[in-house]
């Protein structure tokens, strides 16, 4: 006889407000086979779990149903408790009274009735449940890190430092990401290159790290511990083995007028190029779209001047398949394109620039060697207006969220500008100043109080170029309650932070979820901020949400810790949700074999003691079966069933619906 215990959780007010938990417990008491039914404020708390453990022992329970939050939240918690009390964890089920009931309905009697139904369904299921044992699968102790910005570099270094192998895949020709383009960094104003370059070099030289730049992930198969990833290495047209990085080629390349991605189009580069002098690897690539040889079949100068014969015009893209046990996604962000704002010149006013462009102007290695010169005529900007929240917090035409880092980098820009143009005027239009970090508000106050930036609270409505070439900025001072008009030489827009292009495509490939903007979703917003809902895939940096460098690095190290934790065991415990064949009834029609998406079902020959073949049946490979149950649904003879979701269990659930 079944002896089922029922435990109804109030979740504080979360369930109790809408569901009459006591009534549910009372109703469950009357279900056949239920020997104990109670409700309690917080089931997942220590006393709550203890209550379950005690009941398992005292009442000799053969099954437990916890009516609480989503099993995606606390099923592991309660199953562990059951295990600790000596009950097979798969004899415990959860009914989702919170996400599927109390939070989505308002009417208390109706929600209460539904909660009772949900309990009855799970009680009937648990009575049919069988004891199951976890399955063990081997783990491939190599990590894949996608994205070579500061977050990806940090994650790779930490995993490599922990003694495991890492493959670091970066889409562009060099490591470094956006941080490589920054001049100095808030809140300490240290030089970005100075702190980043050593990390880049270390990553490139680390014996445990395999660097794959100019490469992209194109396919992901497998599951935690056993991913199979296809990486496409784009043709570089330069043999990295032979190239010494001498630079003779790009000095001579005649295709010179290509806007440099690194300099945010404020400077130019050649067709064969190295994105920036500290690039890692420090070897050029040929941009096939602009190379005269590759587009028109003429030129060939680089090959002529190259002392080592490293140029290969016939280079081809290559695909490599790598086997990894875990994946860290660190693909970063991009800036929103402010050409959507016609009132700010629709991206056509040369002296209206974005944050990266200002970083390049302020950078000693940038196109103006650190002088703040206007792109239009190269004059020193005597007056600069900075506009915060450009495209951010604009549900109508931009994005509704706050981009988080732009208050800080705008304060930094204002300070850097005042350092470089002492007599210059720096005006910042802001709506709020969000400077919630260590030393951050002090930094903003410094910009205002000691560096003399003028902060005006209000958004800007219009920017246009006057006859004399200066810009008129029409804003408002909402604190003074009046409009303000400022004439400036240059305007810097703090454009919103958005995911990098192609973010959702990669997410689909990886099977991780993402929000409506394309930022990747963490498994839990508070308690699992570096994991994704896909086991074995972790997040680092600004691909998850706007983040500054310290946060990106912290998350990268956290992701690395998760990976090392995963790699610390040679084998992984897997849920024993796998298919099983009844060899007696199987007629070997092979329908299941064809249906299984994982090729997990094989033929098995049954022989007598003398080794004579009696017949052949289907047989599931537990290591490969993923538990989808597709095979079960196709078997006409009812010979295959899925542990954890057997026909008997599911039919019992349906039959429990009143």
């Amino acid at each position: 006889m079944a002896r089922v215990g029922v435990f109804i959780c109030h979740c504080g007010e979360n369930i109790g407000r809408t569901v009459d938990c006591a009534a549910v417990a009372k109703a469950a008491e009357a279900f056949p086979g239920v020997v104990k039914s109670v409700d309690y404020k917080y089931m997942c708390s220590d006393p709550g779990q203890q209550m379950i453990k005690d009941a398992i022992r005292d009442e000799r329970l053969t099954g437990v149903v916890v009516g609480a939050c989503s099993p995606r939240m606390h099923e592991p918690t309660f199953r562990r408790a059951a295990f600790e009390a000596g009950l097979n964890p798969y004899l415990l089920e959860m009914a989702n009274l919170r996400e599927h009931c109390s939070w989505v309905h308002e009417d208390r009697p109706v929600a209460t009735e539904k909660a009772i139904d949900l309990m009855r369904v799970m009680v009937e299921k648990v009575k049919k449940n069988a004891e199951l044992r976890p399955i063990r699968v081997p783990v491939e102790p190599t990590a894949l890190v996608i994205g070579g910005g500061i977050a990806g570099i940090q994650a790779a270094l930490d995993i490599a430092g922990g003694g495991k192998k890492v493959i670091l895949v970066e889409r562009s020709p060099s490591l470094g990401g956006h941080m490589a383009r920054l001049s100095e960094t808030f809140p300490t104003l240290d030089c970005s290159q100075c702190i980043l370059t050593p990390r880049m070099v270390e990553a490139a030289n680390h014996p445990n790290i395999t660097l794959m730049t100019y490469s992209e992930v194109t396919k992901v198969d497998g599951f935690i511990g056993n991913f199979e990833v296809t990486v496409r290495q784009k043709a570089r047209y330069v043999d990295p083995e032979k190239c010494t990085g001498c630079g003779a080629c790009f000095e001579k390349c005649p295709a010179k007028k290509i806007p440099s991605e690194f300099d945010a189009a404020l400077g130019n580069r050649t067709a064969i190029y190295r994105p920036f002098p500290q690039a890692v690897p420090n070897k050029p690539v040929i941009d096939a779209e602009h190379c005269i040889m590759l587009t028109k079949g003429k030129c060939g100068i680089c090959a002529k001047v190259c002392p080592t014969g490293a140029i290969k015009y016939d280079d081809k893209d290559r695909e490599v398949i790598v086997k990894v046990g875990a994946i860290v996604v660190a693909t970063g962000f991009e800036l929103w394109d402010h050409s959507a704002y016609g009132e700010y010149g629709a991206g056509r006013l040369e002296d209206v620039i974005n944050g990266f462009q200002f970083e390049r102007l302020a950078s000693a290695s940038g196109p103006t060697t650190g002088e703040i010169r206007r792109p239009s005529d190269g004059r020193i900007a005597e007056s600069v207006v900075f506009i915060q929240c450009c495209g951010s917090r604009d549900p109508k035409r931009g994005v509704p969220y706050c981009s988080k880092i732009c208050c800080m980098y705008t304060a930094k820009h204002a300070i850097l500008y005042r350092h470089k143009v002492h007599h210059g005027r720096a005006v910042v239009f802001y709506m709020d100043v969000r400077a919630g970090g260590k030393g951050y508000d002090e930094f903003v106050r410094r910009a205002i109080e000691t560096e003399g930036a003028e902060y005006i609270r209000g958004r800007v409505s219009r920017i246009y170029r006057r006859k004399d070439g200066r810009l008129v900025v029409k804003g408002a001072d909402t604190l003074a309650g009046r409009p303000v008009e400022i004439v400036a030489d240059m305007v810097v827009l703090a454009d919103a932070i958005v995911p990098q292009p192609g973010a959702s495509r990669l997410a689909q490939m990886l099977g991780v979820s993402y929000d409506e903007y394309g930022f990747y979703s963490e498994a839990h917003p508070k308690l699992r901020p570096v994991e994704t809902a896909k086991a074995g895939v972790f997040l680092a940096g600004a691909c998850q949400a706007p983040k500054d460098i310290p946060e990106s690095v912290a998350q990268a190290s956290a992701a690395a810790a998760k990976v090392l934790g995963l790699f610390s065991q040679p084998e992984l415990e897997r849920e024993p949700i796998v298919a099983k064949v009844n060899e007696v009834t199987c007629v070997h029609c092979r329908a299941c074999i064809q249906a299984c998406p994982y090729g997990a079902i094989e033929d098995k020959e049954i022989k007598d003691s003398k080794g004579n073949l009696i017949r052949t049946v289907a047989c599931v490979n537990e290591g490969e079966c993923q538990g989808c149950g597709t095979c079960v649904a196709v078997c006409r003879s009812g010979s295959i069933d899925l542990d954890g979701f057997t026909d008997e269990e599911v039919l019992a659930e349906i039959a429990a619906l009143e």
Partner: protein
Amino acid sequence: MTQTSTKPDAATGADAAAQPWSPRIVAFVCNWCTYAGADLAGTSRLQYAPNVRIIKLPCTGRIDPLFILKAFEQGADAVLVSGCHPGDCHYTAGNYHARRRWGLFRRLMEFTGIDAKRLFFSWVSAAEGQKFADLINAVTDEVRQAGPFDPTNPARKRPWT
């Protein structure tokens, strides 16, 4: 700790026959996408019609035609099947197999005299809480329009309002 003693506040246990008809919908959803989407609807506090009872399966590929028939036998007015988007299946292709079988489901239902319009298919991903709530409301409305499937079925003890 409150031991069970309180009386249910209202309707619980009230005379079922006396209540007006309202749809009973059984939803078979996959664990990875739609179940999580329903969770997201909850975390986002999106209100939707209470007429659905969810049965969780690992994948829509697991759905046996028998389950659907059984649900109607239990007094369902409609069955909803919802899983991951095509191409997004947690199991690479399970939902593809399920989709291939839909035609079969429909024919089977017609054979057994159930109007195929009472069987709904949808894709709701883990990120689509709003879509889940909208889906439940839309299906409930549609079934409300269609009326009860078999009001005389003794298995249907009460409406799921």
